[in-house]
């Protein structure tokens, strides 16, 4: 890769150099994902989906005849192994583009590394809004939304469906995501409905095996709404324990990441709880579920894994779609057989692509604009687990902090009327 | 009247219900080697343990050269000039015999340069001499675990001597040494002690050793000094013959 960069740089220096790219044998991509550890609930489905989608893409001739080849790096092996492997993939493995990563912490580590290595990096799943708000990047892009629209969608959905609640408690995992997402949610809630009383804030340890004490306290506090942005085994445990002890009889749960737990939770998730998906990601996406492509992928995925999709599958599809779109656009715009890195980078500006959800566009600060889907759980017997009804899909552009603004500052400029100004597309189910 | 080197005043120690020392007042004069004899379990080792600070007495006090050392930990008592050799040798088993002595010498001389190798220290010749004195020069470079019980005993004493004490407490110095060597060892030991101006107190079961090498003998029985005197006075005393010596040496 070093050689490649050197070549690229040399080419760029020559007036005609930009046209001198040969078609490679394959387009090598490195993808970091959790194959081990708790977050493998997202990582493994994303990898499985990526394998299917890459196969499909290559079956149709790849990108301008060049097949895509993805190799995976385990984020679960720890930050040292991850950084060395990331570098190895770029410098030795010849990866032209990297997809990294799931963990926000890893994104924070790898984004500057990608910048230093001058390799194009798509942050394909991590949620932290800070990266582009704190620094400018030339090589790093995000092919999905960040935490701000994800949380705003949850707040607005809550206020639109249950405007009269008075008290709220939060039970989030004690790490960056749990804290950051609560910051955004609370800031927005205080702007939109200042009279809400926050009666409890709990941050049990990441991976906590038992929430009995928190649930006892919540039962004593009796909040109208309980928010939890937890995911994976933690969310499963919390919801199971809470539903078993009847906490949902009196409180409405807002679970912005529960789409990824629906199948595992089965009948444990009672109807009437608010569910989100970090984007418009749902295996019964109301706008997409009748599309042939969508349907065929869903059945392919279910055949291979035995499960329904979770949102990380959609994020993986968006990263791959962005790759395809960027290369195709660069090839068309420059009229070349294969684009140089500079041409691909140029193509990223304002790029629009569509994965399994609505189309996504890349903004000038490299942030993706992605729609948000929220719904309410229903146990209607179609599946052995909860499905969503009263679905709303929000336009991402309205909910994302404008370019150059810090999310929390921007949210503080909003008022209660913002909720009414937002008009999502609504679906019965 | 000169001040005694070591003096105990009304020393009492009880373990559970047993009184191992019962109001012991004992003076040890400089330059006179004192042997302590007595039946097993009479409290002889306990007495050495108290004098060296390992056990704190229930009542009473211990004075060394006039200073009250009763409450001092062993390491402080050592620096005052009281060294100790043990019935079961207490050595650094993974070090060689010579290293054991060198470590003792560096503990004595203080620790200055942290990067100066043990083997470069000035005390090396002095320590080899000590080993030679206790007949162990030939095993100087052998690791202690490989040595026989008798050799370890002698090295244990040499380590104590390396500290250049004024008083040396020894617990059965010749047990475990072959009988043929005992006299030879004691000969050397007593000579070395007097050369270095070290007074010794030793617990001993071998009456011929006591007879030959002690300047004074104290008979320990039932937690107190029953009798004290010169070896011939004490060893011929009928009570001592009955209670302590038995008919062994007869």
């Amino acid at each position, binding site marked *: 890769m070093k050689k490649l960069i050197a070549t690229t740089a040399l080419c760029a220096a020559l007036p005609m150099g930009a046209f001198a790219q040969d078609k490679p044998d394959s387009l090598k991509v490195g993808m970091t994902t959790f194959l081990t550890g708790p977050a493998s609930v997202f990582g493994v489905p994303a990898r499985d989906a990526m394998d299917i989608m890459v196969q499909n893409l290559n079956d149709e001739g790849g990108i301008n005849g060049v097949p895509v080849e993805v190799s995976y790096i385990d984020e679960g*092996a720890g930050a040292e192994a991850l950084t060395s492997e990331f570098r190895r993939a770029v410098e030795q493995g010849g990866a032209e583009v990297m997809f990294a990563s799931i963990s926000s912490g890893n994104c924070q580590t790898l984004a500057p590394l990608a910048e230093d290595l001058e390799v194009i990096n798509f942050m394909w799943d991590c949620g932290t809004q800070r990266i582009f708000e704190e620094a400018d990047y030339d090589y790093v892009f995000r092919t999905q939304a960040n935490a701000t629209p994800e949380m705003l969608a949850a707040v607005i959905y809550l206020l639109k469906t249950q405007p009269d609640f008075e008290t709220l408690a939060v039970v989030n995992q004690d790490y960056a995501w749990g804290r950051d997402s609560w910051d955004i949610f609370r800031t927005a809630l205080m702007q939109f409905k200042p009279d809400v009383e926050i009666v409890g804030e709990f941050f049990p340890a990441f991976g906590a095996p038992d929430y009995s004490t928190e649930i006892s306290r919540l039962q004593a506090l009796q909040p109208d709404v309980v928010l939890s942005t937890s995911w994976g085994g933690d969310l499963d445990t919390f919801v199971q324990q809470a539903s078993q002890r009847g906490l949902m009889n009196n409180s409405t749960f807002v679970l912005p990441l529960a789409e990824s737990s629906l199948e595992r939770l089965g009948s444990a998730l009672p109807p009437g709880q608010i569910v989100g998906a970090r984007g418009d990601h749902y295996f019964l996406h109301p706008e997409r579920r009748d599309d042939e492509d969508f349907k065929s992928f869903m059945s392919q995925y279910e055949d291979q894994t035995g499960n329904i999709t979770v949102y990380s599958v959609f994020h993986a599809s968006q990263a791959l779609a962005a790759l395809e779109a960027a290369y195709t656009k660069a090839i068309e715009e420059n009229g070349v057989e294969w684009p140089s890195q500079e041409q691909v980078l140029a193509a990223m500006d304002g790029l629009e692509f569509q994965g399994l959800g609505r189309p996504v566009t890349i903004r000038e600060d490299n942030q993706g604009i992605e729609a948000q889907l929220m719904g309410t759980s229903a146990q209607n017997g179609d599946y052995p687990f909860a499905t969503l009804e009263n679905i709303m899909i929000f336009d991402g552009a309205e909910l994302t902090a404008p370019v150059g603004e810090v999310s929390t500052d921007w949210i503080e400029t909003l008022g209660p009327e913002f909720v009414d100004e937002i008009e999502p597309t609504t679906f019965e189910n | 009247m000169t001040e005694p080197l070591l003096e105990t005043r009304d020393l009492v120690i009880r373990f559970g219900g047993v009184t191992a020392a019962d109001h012991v007042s004992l003076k040890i004069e400089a330059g006179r080697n004192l042997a302590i004899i007595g039946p097993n379990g009479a409290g002889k080792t306990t007495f050495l343990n108290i004098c060296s600070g390992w056990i704190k007495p229930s009542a009473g006090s211990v004075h060394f050269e006039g200073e009250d050392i009763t409450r001092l930990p062993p390491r402080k008592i050592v620096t005052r000039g009281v060294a100790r050799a043990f019935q079961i040798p207490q*050595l650094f088993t993974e070090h060689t015999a010579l290293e054991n002595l060198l470590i003792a010498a560096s503990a004595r001389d203080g620790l200055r340069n*942290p990067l100066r190798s043990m083997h470069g*220290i000035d005390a090396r010749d002095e320590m080899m001499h000590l080993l030679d004195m206790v007949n162990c020069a030939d095993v100087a470079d052998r690791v202690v675990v490989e040595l026989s019980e008798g050799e370890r005993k002698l090295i244990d004493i040499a380590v104590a001597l390396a500290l250049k004490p004024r008083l040396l407490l020894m617990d059965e110095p010749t047990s475990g040494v072959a009988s043929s060597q005992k006299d030879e060892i004691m000969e050397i030991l007593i000579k070395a002690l007097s050369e270095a101006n070290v007074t010794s107190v030793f617990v001993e079961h071998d009456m011929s050793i006591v007879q030959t090498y002690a300047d004074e003998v104290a008979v320990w029985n039932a937690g107190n000094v029953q009798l004290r005197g010169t070896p011939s006075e004490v060893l011929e005393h009928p009570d001592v013959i009955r209670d302590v010596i038995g008919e062994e040496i007869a």
Partner: protein
Amino acid sequence: MSSVTTTAPATGSSPAALSLLWIAGVVLLAAVPFLAPNLQLLVNFALAKGLAVVGVTVLLRAGQVSFGHALFFGISAYIGAFVMASVPGMDFFGILIAGTLGAALAGLVVGLFVVRYRGIFFGMLNLAFSMIFWSILEKFYHITGGADGIRLTRPTVLGMELGRDAFELFLYYTAIVLVVGLGWFTIRWFASPVGQLFQTIKTNETRLEYLGISPRRAMLSGYLLSAALCGVGGILMATAQGVVTPEYVWWVRSAEMVFIAVLGGAGSVRGAFLGALIYEFVRTYASAYAGDVWQMLLGAFLLVIILFAPGGIIGIFERVFARGKGTS
């Protein structure tokens, strides 16, 4: 306790030929950026970890095992991160010194408590201290960044701003210099009177006391050294990696250090580095090529070493070398 776990105290010098071999090894390491540039970062991590492992090795020499030494590794790394964050443009040597001093200070504070304990309790108490620090790192998210940790920007080097490649090269050679220097220092320290007294804790504290030395103070001297060594390792790791996370302090990290120390040859300084290099290679390549079973491979590797080669890799190495010399 038998002496199988530790090599005999290194009071004698290795045969000249063996020393030559070690020198050749160092030269080979120094050539890595040119011969195999892609290994440079990996080796750099291994050297940083190796320094921490030497810290653990120091304690093994006194027969003690700490299951919490990642604490000092992590403290130093976090101090480095905090200093970088609060003093922009801080120099590398500034954070190296700050981190090492911080680790040594923490070693003094923790050491004053733990030197009273031996064996399992010593190990457990160290574990408890490290877990307290770990919990604090996770919990006080607004200060420590929680599980995501803190990013370290690249420090300047003697006032110069270096690019990534130059900085990494600098860091790499600094690591080699530190490894050789501190390794030499530790070996010398073992042979010194203070080091010798410290090591006697393993075999006979009673005699130590009767030499007029406080076993606790002797223990503290080694504990301080071990904490400082972990500190240097931690700061090297933090700057090489560019991020510090609470995982630096997690108990499995501490166990891993003991693991490497025994793997390399418990009690041997050179073994610690050899072990760290091998461990880092096995771990990285196993996690890349046998992602599902890399832990299992390492575990099995450790079992084989303990059961069949208690002298560790260095033991095998020296035995083979001695045999080779005998026949030639």
